[in-house]
């Protein structure tokens, strides 16, 4: 029974099929069908040598939610708020979040729910969950009537302190379900049961706004797949790097905002486990953007907040940093003489100048072509022909503007600036988070990652780069190896010394049981199921908390306080002058382990094992201000454990690895390519 991962990106749909029985892996790439994404998905599947009724696990990474959120193409959404608080979404935190310093023309992203669709009902719960004012039934009836009139597709219910008591929100949900048909309903105490009304309401509004879009997409897709013979759950990658059923994703679409880039992190984690390398940075560079994420001790970093379409989203999510640096990033000289590469991109259309589709501005891909690093015959797996002379004249224009006589120096400048931008993106997820990146291995993948991995590593002081097998399909591979995963987070504010630990344990168990139930529905065997319980604690009066793993069957005040104090000291090297420890959140993670995938190295084609015979040609390639005669290798012809010295270029389907002069490369026995600084 096969497993298939399908990663649908803006330009390409990447697929990977794996048969555990034979160890066979098949990777494929087809153009994404932007008008009807389902179509490209199914076309891609058709190319794989397997029938869908023989597939036991079909996994999917998608940018449907991301794009709807960023491009503001979600549903017409209403909101129901505690009376007096319908403007919480518009007021926010008063922060701009996306620059704007010294820019009087800054425009804030509009709220997801217009004020005219923001309704109020009288009700009130306090922070302890006590009812201060009952839910006003007349208000509710009026709002329901209005909802029918205004023709909305979705509604989010946002009441104060709903994390502490969901009663009123639930009552509204039930009421609406009975009376307003065809409405996507979600509520804040369910989507993100956390204190801080703006963040909770925003996540809930996002969920409602994305709900109908994601629901439509997934149900159309599932229909097509069922028609094609696939009888099991379609599994969706979420922002945590785990997968969930399409059914669950339709209910919580906000959790799929990072569905696209999360596959790469999952793949990086898998690679680290397989190779016994615990600290890695995933570096996924594609045509328009680069995604980076830090994995430490085989745990990917999580972010408290992410800005999506100009709004802060606080849900459990990987700390993936995305910047506008890709093969299509455009180089330009500003009026004041400063030199920029990206974030503007030539996109898929017209694409880099060398594509000959009307792009005139020099891009990173054009620069690599001029430098001889990118083989004209291997631009993105050979499916495209490129015209080096167009790249050259585009880069010549840059050279002229820079006052450089030499087009190659300009081309190298473009690459250097792009590399420096990507290095900054990695600094943001490492140094800014207190992690020195230098001991980490850089996992370079995506269409353009292997081409720049060594230079990015070098500018950060990293000495090791890994270009995995199937670098152009690595994110899709990541889908295959992803666990089922459900995250539950609930605010429960109480001092440890005053806490009713029985209640806390009960809440934790209930969250765990909900996780078990969901995993069972998704087909996880109980023996493959893990539940992790964490209490997030802080010293009273602080804003930051730390997570302490607990066993709900064995909670004591003394152990909790002691564990927290130890962890706090280990983290901050500081022991504050207080012992008042507060429980803030209960966090439960339910994991259904993925079936094992073992990546057997593809057998190298017979070449006698001699490196000398492997190069298909020698080309003059520009590095560090000069040309070097550089051997060009075919990756599939490099035997295992082959070693070679830079400069060298290694071509393969969907990617090109550049080994600069100061680097050496080795084909690891696992088949992955290891690059080391000499």
């Amino acid at each position, binding site marked *: 029974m096969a497993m298939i991962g399908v990663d649908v990106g803006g330009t390409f749909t990447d697929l990977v099929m794996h048969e555990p029985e034979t160890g066979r892996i098949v990777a494929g790439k087809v153009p994404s069908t932007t008008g009807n994404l389902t179509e490209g998905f199914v076309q891609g599947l058709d190319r794989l040598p397997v029938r869908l009724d023989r597939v036991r696990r079909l996994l999917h990474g998608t940018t449907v939610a991301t794009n709807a959120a960023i491009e503001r193409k979600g549903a017409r959404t209403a909101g129901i708020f505690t*009376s*007096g*608080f319908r*403007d*919480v979404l*518009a*007021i*926010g*935190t*008063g*922060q*701009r*979040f996306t620059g*704007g*310093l*010294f*820019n*009087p*023309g*800054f*425009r*804030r992203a509009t709220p997801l729910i217009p*004020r*005219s669709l923001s309704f109020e009902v009288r009700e009130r719960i*306090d*922070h302890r969950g006590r009812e*201060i004012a009952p839910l006003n039934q007349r208000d509710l009836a009026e709002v329901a009537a209005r909802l029918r009139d205004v023709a909305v597709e979705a509604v989010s219910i946002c009441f*104060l*302190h709903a994390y502490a008591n969901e009663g009123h929100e639930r009552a509204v949900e039930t009421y609406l379900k009975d009376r307003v048909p065809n409405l996507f309903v979600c509520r804040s105490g369910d989507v993100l049961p956390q*204190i*801080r*009304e*703006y*963040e909770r309401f925003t996540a809930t509004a996002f969920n409602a706004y994305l709900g109908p879009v994601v629901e439509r997409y997934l149900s159309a897709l599932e229909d097509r797949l069922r028609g094609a013979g696939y009888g099991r759950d379609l599994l969706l990658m979420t922002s945590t790097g785990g997968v969930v059923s399409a059914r669950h994703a339709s209910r919580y679409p906000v959790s799929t905002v990072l569905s696209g880039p999360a596959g790469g992190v999952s793949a990086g984690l898998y690679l680290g486990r397989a190779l016994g390398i615990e600290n890695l940075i995933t570096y996924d560079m594609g045509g328009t953007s680069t995604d980076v994420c830090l994995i430490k001790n085989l745990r990917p970093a999580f972010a408290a907040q992410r800005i999506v379409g100009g709004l802060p989203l606080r849900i459990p999510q990987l700390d993936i940093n995305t910047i506008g640096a890709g093969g299509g990033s455009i180089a330009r*000289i500003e009026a*004041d*003489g*400063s*030199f*920029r590469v990206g974030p503007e991109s030539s996109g898929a259309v017209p694409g880099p100048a060398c594509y000959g589709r009307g792009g005139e501005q020099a891009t990173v891909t054009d620069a690599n072509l001029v430098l001889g690093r990118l083989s004209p015959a291997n631009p993105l797996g050979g499916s495209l022909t490129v015209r080096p002379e167009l790249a050259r004249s585009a880069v010549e224009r840059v050279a002229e503007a*820079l006052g450089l006589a030499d087009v190659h120096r300009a081309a*190298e*400048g473009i690459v*250097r*600036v792009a590399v*420096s*931008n990507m290095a*900054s993106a990695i600094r*943001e997820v490492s*140094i*800014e*988070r*207190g992690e020195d990146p230098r001991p980490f291995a850089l996992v370079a993948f995506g269409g353009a990652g292997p081409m720049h991995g060594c230079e990015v590593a070098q500018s950060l002081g990293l000495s090791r780069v890994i270009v995995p097998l199937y670098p152009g399909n690595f994110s899709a591979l990541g889908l295959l190896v992803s666990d089922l995963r459900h995250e539950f987070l609930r605010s429960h*504010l109480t001092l440890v010394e005053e806490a009713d630990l029985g209640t806390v344990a009960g809440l934790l168990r209930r969250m765990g049981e909900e996780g078990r139930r969901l995993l069972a529905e998704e087909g996880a065997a109980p023996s493959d199921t893990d539940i992790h319980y964490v209490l997030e604690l802080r010293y009273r*009066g602080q*804003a*930051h908390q730390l997570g302490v793993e607990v066993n709900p069957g064995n909670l004591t005040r003394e152990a909790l306080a002691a564990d927290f104090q130890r962890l706090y000291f280990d983290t*901050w090297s*500081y022991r504050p*002058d207080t012992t008042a420890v507060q429980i803030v959140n209960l966090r439960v993670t339910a994991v259904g382990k993925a079936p094992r995938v073992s990546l057997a190295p593809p057998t190298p084609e017979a070449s006698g094992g001699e490196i000398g015979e492997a190069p298909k040609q020698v080309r003059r390639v520009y590095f560090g201000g000069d040309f070097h005669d550089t051997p060009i290798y075919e990756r599939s012809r490099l035997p295992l454990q082959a070693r070679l010295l830079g400069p060298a270029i290694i071509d393969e389907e969907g990617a090109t690895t550049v080994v600069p002069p100061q680097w050496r490369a080795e084909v690891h026995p696992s088949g992955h390519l290891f690059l080391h600084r000499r």
Partner: protein
Amino acid sequence: MAGEADERSGRAAMAGAPSQGGPAAAPDPVRVEVIHNALMSFIKEMRYTIIRTAFGPSLRERHDFSCALQAPDGELVAIYQDNPPHIVPTVYAVRAARDRFGDDLHQGDVILVNDPYVLGGHMNDVAHLYPIFEGGRLIFWIVIRLHYTDIGGMAAGSITPDATEVYQEGIRIPPVKAYQKGVANDAFLDVFFANVRVPDERKADFMALIASFWTSEKRLREILDTHGTDSVLECSEVVRDRAERRMRDAIARLPDGEYAYELNLDSDGFARRWIPLRVRVVIAGDSMTVDFGDSAPSVAGPMNGSEATAACAAFVAVKGLLDPGPAVNGGSFRPIRVVTRRGTLFQAQPPTPTCGAQDLMHRATSVVLGALAPAVPANALGDHCSPGHHYMAGHDPETGRPFIMYDSPIGGTGAVQAHDGNDVLAGFERGDHTRIMPMEVHETEFPFLAEFNELRVDSGGAGERRGGLGVRRGWRMVRGRGTLTDMAEPSFTPYHGLLGAHGGAPNTTVVSRGESLLVPAEATGKAVRFPIQEGDLVQILKWGGGGYGDPLERDSRAVLEDVRQGYVSSRSARELYGIVLAAGTVDAVATRRLRERLRADRVYLTVVAVDRDTLHDQSRLWLLAPEAARRLGCGEGEMIECIAQGTAPLRGRVRLCSGQAAGELPSGPFARKVFRAGAGARVWVRRVFNPMQWELGSAWPSPHPAREGDS
């Protein structure tokens, strides 16, 4: 107007040595970009390192600090999204340190400065300076300005509207070495921490900064090693030269001439009175002079500042208008000369209190924005610059402990030519580091229950583009008693609009007690420890941004949509925008008629040149014939605004003058400069519309304070 040139101090306020003209060997733009990237990362990382490693609430929780890399002479080389009012004035701190220590500066020194007569802010904001030497040569300063939650003085938090001397506002630190060559100056530190509240937390904050200096130095040296010291210094010059070039080009595109504006503070902390801020901006070729010399003398209350206050305001306004965007360094300031005069608000002398200097800085930014609006209409915006310190303090009977609850929402931004202002958002002149607190979190800690958190309807200045709305937050005190302190400026006068637009609603805090609505700031302009008690509903009202352009020109569909969304009341649609709504849609015929009538009813007066502007107790009077006043519908002492084509409104009070010709507006030299027009020009005159008046109804305090001493 008063003011002799020789009394003034003038210099290119924050610039280093002017750039050498003429082309030098062109630096490699790729290298410059890569190194500049590294320096920007350096500044950003410094910020995160401090947040991560600090314990004290100022740093860890409120992030109320800023970082900069500065040149040996203090010129800013790199800042990130740090708070300009924090970091821009540190140039003065570096200069003061160099004046004080001369050559006695060494690697490992840490110099502290918070002297408000140098830095022009409240003393809580302490500048920490760390020089970097390479080969015996001073090459950079790493600078952190941190707001200490308390710096001593008469009240917890150290910022209090009723201070009368700087000694009541905390411990004043002239440039002093807290570390000498890496060794702590314990004598100073002991005295420092003995003079502040909760010294352990302050000390923890301080030690975190010291540690971050060590880390940052290491990181900076890595950059120097990687790229070469000379290359890094070259880059630091190139980026500043570029900023200078951009600014000079932008200034050169403006017509030469003089631009002027004036606005008023509403209170000095003790009494409601008009305190004028005046600026004259002279553009000559590719440089400009921003002259605050005609502003009011320093006041008895704490609304005083220094040259740094003026310079920061000028920098922020000019940078935003002429070179909008994130590339920020001192090069932009080289073409700008700032002038202040001794004894005025912008050169207050010890021991005048100064803890309101941040408020002054924000309002000074507004006055420069108003002056330059006619020169840069595409980037100009309705007024919104405001600080805001308010808190409720008291005793919570449930916990048995005292509490201080800071709740500092902000307001809307001014409209620009291209679009409406933003609702409740940090303006372009502030950093993005502080947030409005979640009301849910406050409820867990303080004896208050949130009743509402709403956009303030009609608070955005009406105009062709509408100002962003402010906010209205309601807190019900559910137990105990306490006090309310609120320093927000302006508290009575609306923020001005531009080019005929109305202003945005000002700030105030009102208290509903039973049936009555109390306005604590009525007497003094600021609420100072106003007593509150169980059952009171405290309503914090924050500002709306000024509008842009004539409201009668606003697209009727936009007004309809505003009414539909509830941003604008139908009364406002009718009275300010001239839109007649019927059955949820625009009655086009009635609207056209109404707009025609409103236009026809407008009062235009003809400028008559007089030798002197008419001032009383510093503030502007407009001499009107009783007939003109009647047409305006206003009486003696009321506030009117005079709007010349393409300018910001010049406000003043009506002085009825029976000898005055009804169609004339006697205008002194300063007024004519604001109007950018001479005798014979027609100026639109109207009552100042204040949205707060509608909002508060009968509780609205008399719009003009008692004219004490008026003759």
